[in-house]
């Protein structure tokens, strides 16, 4: 039997119960792998280290009296263990990732090569400044380009992730309000319902009261709703643009003007900047502060692959309050301004200077793309999302009607109503088709949401196969083939997990399992 890609495959019956369970639990190359504490033995080691000689411990009563019992493996065992575990991952290097840049988009390998250059990879933040002039020049140049792309007056490079950048921007706003003598009066931060969840969390963390602004039926924020919520007690409005519904806020300029007229500051969550780089300079829209996720827009690895990096661009009004440290160019050398004395800086966000390795990768990405390439990446991200949206719009339902989206295509679950299939079931069936599910049940303002971000790096062939797979699933829903969904995933190493039991009665402590018996102890049945 051939599958839709013209390759020989097993019929579905191959996994039916009459197929014999294997003795090992392996399913051909899909290996079962125990925890390292199950397969390791304390007496085994991969390296031959001399026994410690006689010595007098100096820990007194603190000295350990019981064996530490760390699992030991030989070198080939250690290799197999971690290679097998790595094969259980779904990753952007294995297939299309509809979670998009929020989780990971393609990390160009050139970036990795650049970050490992000894002049960047082998330096230390406590090295004398005179010995790291090249690294400082890179940070300074990257800062310059970020302000160029956003139209900003200043940028704080040190925040270590998006939410950290939000905190930085909001702390600058707080410092500016305090400098004006309005710190005690302005206690409220407005956050639209379509904002990222980190926005209200950031405002609350810094001590503000959060007041939501309802979204309109079309998924965007109206200037009237913002106007109605503004007042002398409002410190800032935090808007995610493009928003979590994948839509550009059409009234953003009017909202910014209303915020400023009320004496407040306008924070923009720039996590979705990757949809508009090279097309819009956010500061031209009236933004006072915005973080940029280098690990999203500029392709640096994140999640398990590396730390985030969230520089914050600031308007002229907020620039004096930027955190330390920052780089100052004196004649022919670069200096670090480490202390806030004599300035209005609100202080320091991090011990050192930011995510140097990510700065190198982001600059490598910018240099390899050029201005036109970066603009095209934004355009392609938007084009790919709209291609998916249009190709699925006749079988799935879009919450805000047939209108263009930015870099993410959003569907709701109206098309599943009465079919017995839920968003969760549909997502699980995608796993059987070899795709990681898209973002589900978010944004919260859309019922049973399915949010797909293909990113700019997918080819048309890759998008077409993904679309055909989703259409095939949708046709199954229409034909009432609910069993394809209710028990999914069928082909994964583990079937559907009981999320409820996992949350209600979590097993948080590992207990030792029975060891595998020696071969000579197994009798034939």
């Amino acid at each position, binding site marked *: 039997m051939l599958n839709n890609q013209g390759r020989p495959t097993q019929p579905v019956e191959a996994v039916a119960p009459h197929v014999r369970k294997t003795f090992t639990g392996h399913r051909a190359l899909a290996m079962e792998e125990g925890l390292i504490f199950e397969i390791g033995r304390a007496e085994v080691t991969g390296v031959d280290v001399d026994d410690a000689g006689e010595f007098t411990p100096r820990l007194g009563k603190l000295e350990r009296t019981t064996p530490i019992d760390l699992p030991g493996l030989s070198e080939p065992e250690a290799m197999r263990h971690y290679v097998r575990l790595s094969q259980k991952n779904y990753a952007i290097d294995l297939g299309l990732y509809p979670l998009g840049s929020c989780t990971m988009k393609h990390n160009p390998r050139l970036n990795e090569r650049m970050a490992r250059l000894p002049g960047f990879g082998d330096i230390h933040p406590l090295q004398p400044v005179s010995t790291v002039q090249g690294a400082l020049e890179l940070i300074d140049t990257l800062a310059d380009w970020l302000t160029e792309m956003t139209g900003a007056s200043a940028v704080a490079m040190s925040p270590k992730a998006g939410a950290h950048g939000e905190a930085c921007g909001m702390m600058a706003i707080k410092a500016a309000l305090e400098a004006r003598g309005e710190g005690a009066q302005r206690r409220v931060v407005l956050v639209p319902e379509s904002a990222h969840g980190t926005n209200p969390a950031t405002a609350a963390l810094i001590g503000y009261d959060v007041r939501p602004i309802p979204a309109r039926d079309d998924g965007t924020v109206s200037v009237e709703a913002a106007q109605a919520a503004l007042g002398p007690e409002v410190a800032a409005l935090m808007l995610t643009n493009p928003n979590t519904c994948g839509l550009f806020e059409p009234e953003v300029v009017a909202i910014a003007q209303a915020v400023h007229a009320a004496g407040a500051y306008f924070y923009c969550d720039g996590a979705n900047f990757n949809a508009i780089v090279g097309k819009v300079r956010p500061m031209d829209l009236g933004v006072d502060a915005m973080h940029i996720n280098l690990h999203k827009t500029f392709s640096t690895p994140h999640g398990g692959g590396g730390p985030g990096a969230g520089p914050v661009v600031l308007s002229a009004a907020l620039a004096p309050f930027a955190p330390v440290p920052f780089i100052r160019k004196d004649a022919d050398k670069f200096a670090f301004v480490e202390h806030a004395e004599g300035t209005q800086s609100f202080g320091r966000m991090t011990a050192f200077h930011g995510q140097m390795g990510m700065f190198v990768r982001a600059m490598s990405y910018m240099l390899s793309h050029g201005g036109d390439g970066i603009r095209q990446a934004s355009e392609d991200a938007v084009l790919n999302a709209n291609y998916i949206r249009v190709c699925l719009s006749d079988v799935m339902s879009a919450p805000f009607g047939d209108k263009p989206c930015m870099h993410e295509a959003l569907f709701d679950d109206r098309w599943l109503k009465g079919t017995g299939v839920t968003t*969760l079931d549909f997502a699980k069936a995608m796993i059987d088709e070899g795709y990681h599910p898209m973002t589900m*049940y*978010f944004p*919260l303002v859309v019922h049973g949401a399915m949010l797909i971000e293909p990113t700019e790096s997918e080819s048309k062939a890759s998008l077409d196969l993904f679309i055909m797979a989703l259409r095939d699933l949708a046709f199954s829903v229409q034909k009432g083939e609910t069993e394809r969904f209710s028990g999914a995933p069928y082909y994964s190493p583990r079937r559907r997990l009981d*999320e*409820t039991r996992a*949350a*209600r009665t979590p097993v948080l402590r590992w207990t030792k399992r029975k060891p595998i018996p020696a071969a000579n102890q197994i009798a034939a049945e």
Partner: protein
Amino acid sequence: MSTIRYTKDHEYISVDGDVAIVGITDYAQAQLGDVVFVELPTMGKSFKKGEQAAVVESVKAASEVYAPVSGEVVEINSELEGAPALVNEDSVGKGWFVKLRITDQGELGALMDEAAYADYLKTLD
């Protein structure tokens, strides 16, 4: 004799004199799916109408529960700590969240009665 009132955010409030039982409606629990955690306020805490009084977390999402009227917490349903499933099984009975001593009876007038809430639910589908 208690009267039951509803909010647009799907809280119910069952009023008996100046004390009221607050929880989430059957519609709300069905929308949330399996509830796995409920965070309740401390005893004696006072809320203004519309302030966040509790958090309910399901396998799908975490949602805020708002105080339907202003009042002071006089009792909490501590059983929910060990058995959040009660919210799914019996949201208007054993799955109640808190008992409030109402500070302004007048605020009850703005809430929906049974029939109005049923009509409101029809508009949501």
